[in-house]
């Protein structure tokens, strides 16, 4: 291999917090080669971002850095802040997770872009503006002149991130560090950004360090992958090697806990990693994964671990490479057996419409949709942000007033807000929210949080009786009874979500709405929460979920039925297996093809959605998807609302595509 452009040698970073010092990075060694995309993956708290900012020598004042970062023959850690100005943004650029907070909202985009070149390359403002324009053209942004005159809030999130990338490239840096650049974006936007990254390497000879918590993205973009855990690199290898021959127990566990290759809840339970990440103390010399590792033994793991090269270019920190238990064998899923029980409707939604008033126009978040949820089934709702999936949930829950339509639960009309609903309906329809840090009151203990609904809705007045129920519930969700007096601030994200689930199941509900219940959690925790939800359903056998998610693997894993939404409309509905295999609605096809597959080869057909997303203010005619649809057949799509086309008894799409085209579709998932 050629000479590395960046060498990180024994990089350690220690943060001095008020009470204890935390070792965020411990002796990290890694090289970055020219024209390479190096993926760094790990759960939150693994030191990924510390590594990114450490390379820029840009960490807080309470960070103690040691080691060396060699770049162009110089050690960046020896440089003063003033000297580093020459490197930051100029030779090494960084792109952050949230483009909206990285851009100055009060400056026009053109000015922000030009500033970079004026500062670093001492260009005249006019020339810098010209360069900005060229940069936008080379990044394939439509209509660059008008973009340069706009403010950040006037363009979409994906566009903003592309502007940030353009800004990073203004000085043609040799290294681009991307810290979760697509985490705040939708999947169809994400693929566009990923394409862009691949092109950057070819076009500008940039080397990229790509940081993400998402193994799927990392596996689709990177040449080499470093898996980080608690401030150390656990494993480092070429992409294909890493996925076909993972060595470190953490890598294996991480790969295994994601629902992949269309695996569903009927086929297998997801693997989980017990425990959670704790802060590392500098005196701790044992393997960082020791506490959660199922292969841990007493001696070897404490002092006899460390990076070793097992094959050319494949490094791993675990000495137990001999463990040949290869659970990561890519097991092909069996054909799914659909349950034989009768489908009994529980919830009927007819012509539901929700309009939000905005200044001059209206925003139709949910546009005349009808569906029904059956007993003892999981009903998945999928769509990108703004498609109306959460609004639908809030209407069913009675937290939003509807503007039309009817919601019927067990034959009773419940088209009213929570104030007017009967205690019984309130009790039976429950909700698990996205972020347990926000859905649990930080002021109260677990006992009070779970106890209150039991008292209010189940009418159990005695504290002792309630305590018994609470302890039983805690055991059910996998928490010990010691948690009963804890406050949520003392818990990890996964533990909090378990408490939130316990609160919901305390009421023995019949319908639970789960609004992105795992997207604020790490993958290993996500697996545990999904397993728990499935177990609780199987145990009670009389419970339905409405499961809202943007993660198609997760929806495929847990759902019996799936509804795909786009801009307030239903695109496709059917049994999960039917929706996830052809024929598809073109939007479903695009979504599925955008999902990065962990360790899988390249996708057969890659669909990129271009065009802008219109605002659903009632002026869109025809099919809502026509502005971006890659399979648009003509004027009819713009003029006429697509009819409901029944493909099977349970599967329908809203599309104008003729049958013969639908039949020719190939599988993309």
């Amino acid at each position, binding site marked *: 291999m050629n000479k590395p452009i960046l060498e990180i040698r024994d990089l350690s970073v220690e943060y001095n917090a008020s009470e204890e010092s935390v070792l965020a990075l411990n002796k990290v060694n890694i090289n970055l080669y020219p024209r390479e995309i190096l993926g760094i993956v790990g759960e939150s708290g693994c030191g990924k971002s510390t590594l990114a900012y450490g390379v820029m020598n840009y960490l807080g004042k309470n960070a103690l850095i040691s080691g060396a970062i060699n770049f162009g023959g110089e050690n960046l850690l020896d440089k003063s802040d003033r000297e580093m100005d020459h490197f930051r943004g100029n030779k090494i650029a960084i792109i952050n997770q949230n483009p909206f907070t990285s851009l100055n909202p009060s400056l026009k985009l053109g000015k922000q872009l030009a500033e970079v070149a004026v500062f670093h390359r001492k260009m005249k403002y006019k020339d810098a503006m010209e360069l900005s324009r060229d940069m936008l053209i080379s990044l394939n942004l439509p209509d660059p002149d008008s973009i340069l005159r706009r403010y950040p809030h006037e363009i979409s999130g994906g566009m903003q991130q592309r502007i940030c990338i353009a800004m990073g490239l203004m000085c043609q840096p040799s290294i681009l560090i991307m810290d979760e650049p697509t985490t705040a974006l939708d999947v169809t936007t994400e693929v566009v950004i990923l394409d862009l990254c691949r092109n950057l390497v070819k076009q500008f000879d940039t080397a990229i360090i790509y940081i993400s918590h998402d193994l799927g993205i990392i596996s689709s973009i990177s040449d080499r992958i470093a898996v980080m855990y608690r401030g150390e690199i656990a494993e480092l290898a070429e992409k294909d090697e890493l996925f076909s021959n993972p060595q470190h127990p953490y890598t294996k566990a991480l790969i295994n806990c994601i629902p992949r290759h269309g695996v569903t809840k009927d086929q297998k339970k997801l693997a989980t990693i017990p425990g959670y990440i704790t802060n590392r103390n500098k005196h701790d010399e044992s393997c960082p994964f020791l506490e959660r590792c199922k292969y841990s033994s007493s001696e070897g793991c404490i002092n006899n671990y460390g990076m070793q090269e097992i094959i050319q270019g494949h490094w791993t920190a675990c000495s137990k490479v001999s463990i040949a238990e290869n659970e990561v064998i890519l097991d092909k899923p069996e054909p799914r057996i659909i349950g034989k029980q009768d489908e009994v409707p529980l919830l009927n939604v007819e012509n539901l419409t929700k309009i939000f008033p905005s200044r001059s126009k209206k925003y139709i978040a949910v546009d005349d949709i009808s569906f029904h949820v059956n007993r003892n089934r999981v009903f998945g709702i999928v769509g990108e942000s703004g498609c109306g999936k959460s609004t639908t949930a809030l209407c069913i*829950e*009675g*937290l939003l007033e509807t503007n039309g339509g009817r919601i019927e639960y067990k034959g009773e009309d419940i088209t009213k807000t*929570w*104030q007017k*609903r009967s*205690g019984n309906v*309130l*009790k039976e*329809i*429950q*909700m698990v*929210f*996205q*972020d347990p840090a*926000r*859905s*649990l*009151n*930080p*002021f109260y203990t677990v006992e009070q949080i779970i106890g*209150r*609904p039991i008292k*209010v*809705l189940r009418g159990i007045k005695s504290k002792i009786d309630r305590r018994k129920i609470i302890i039983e519930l805690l055991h059910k969700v996998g928490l010990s009874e010691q948690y009963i007096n804890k406050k949520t601030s003392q818990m990890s994200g996964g533990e909090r979500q378990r408490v939130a689930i316990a*609160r919901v199941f305390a*009421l023995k509900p019949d319908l639970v709405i789960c609004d992105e219940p795992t997207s604020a959690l790490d993958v290993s925790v996500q697996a545990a929460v999904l397993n728990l939800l499935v177990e609780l359903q199987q145990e009670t056998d009389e419970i339905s979920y409405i499961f809202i998610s943007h993660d198609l693997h997760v929806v495929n894993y847990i759902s019996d039925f799936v509804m795909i939404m786009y801009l307030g409309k239903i695109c496709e509905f059917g049994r999960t297996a039917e929706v996830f295999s052809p024929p598809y609605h073109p939007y479903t096809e695009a979504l599925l093809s955008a999902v990065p597959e962990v360790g899988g080869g390249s996708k057969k057909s890659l669909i990129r959605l271009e065009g802008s997303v219109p605002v659903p203010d009632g002026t869109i005619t025809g099919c809502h998807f026509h502005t971006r649809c890659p399979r648009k057949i003509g004027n009819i799509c713009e003029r006429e609302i697509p009819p409901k086309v029944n493909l099977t008894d349970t599967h329908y799409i809203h599309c104008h595509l003729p049958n013969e085209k639908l039949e020719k579709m190939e599988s993309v998932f």
Partner: protein
Amino acid sequence: MKLSKITIGGIIGIVILAFWIFMAIFGSMLTPYTHVEMDLVQKMAAPSASHILGTDQLGRDIFSRIIIGSRSVLTVSVTAALFSTFLGILVGFSAGYFGGKTDEIIMRFMDILLSMPALVLAMVVVGIMEGTSILTLTLVISIVFTPRTARVARSALLTWKDLEFVDAAKIRGESHLYIMFMEIMPNALGPIIVEATARIAYSVMTVSALGFLGIGLQPPTPDWGMMVSENKSIIISAPWAVLAPTIAIASLVIGVSLLADLIQRRLINE
């Protein structure tokens, strides 16, 4: 509370406040005079062993008057701060929680009150109420301060109102009152307490200013502001008669403000 988090300023604040509370309760035991007793032989006497802080024009012992004055100023300002906080929570919470038109109407009315200088507003209200007792003075100051505490209470509520635990409370059918006071208020109390403490300091100033203007507490109650005003004509010949109440006012305001700072650091900036 960890000791390391207590600042020097905070300690000074606590000491000053403790000093004045002690003086208000036990101070009268330390002096042989009452606050109205006139020693006609020793008018405008300089501080000495018999009169620690000297005497005023009428030969009254200044130390005794300060001590008795501390009782009214502490009572009025602490009660007024608490009462205005209470009113502020009621007003601010209903505005913020219900939002929309309710919010607009209530808050614009508060803005109108806020647009008038506190002192002028207080003078008007005192004028309407005719005659000032400790009770009316407390009420006046509470009303004047309510728009300010209401704003703080409202914004404290708004930071928590949209969190999902509020939705969770709604979908188990809790009442608005429960949600406001049992779900949101415990979390939102930090800035409200800080504001309440700061309001004590402002109350001390307002009480003294009204006293100075002669529309505060009426004689014979020895109000600190009134003492400054009574003795301002002898500021050259007997400066202690003015200095003593002035320093008393200043120290109490500073002490309470330092305490408010400490509380803010503990409750909010953590």
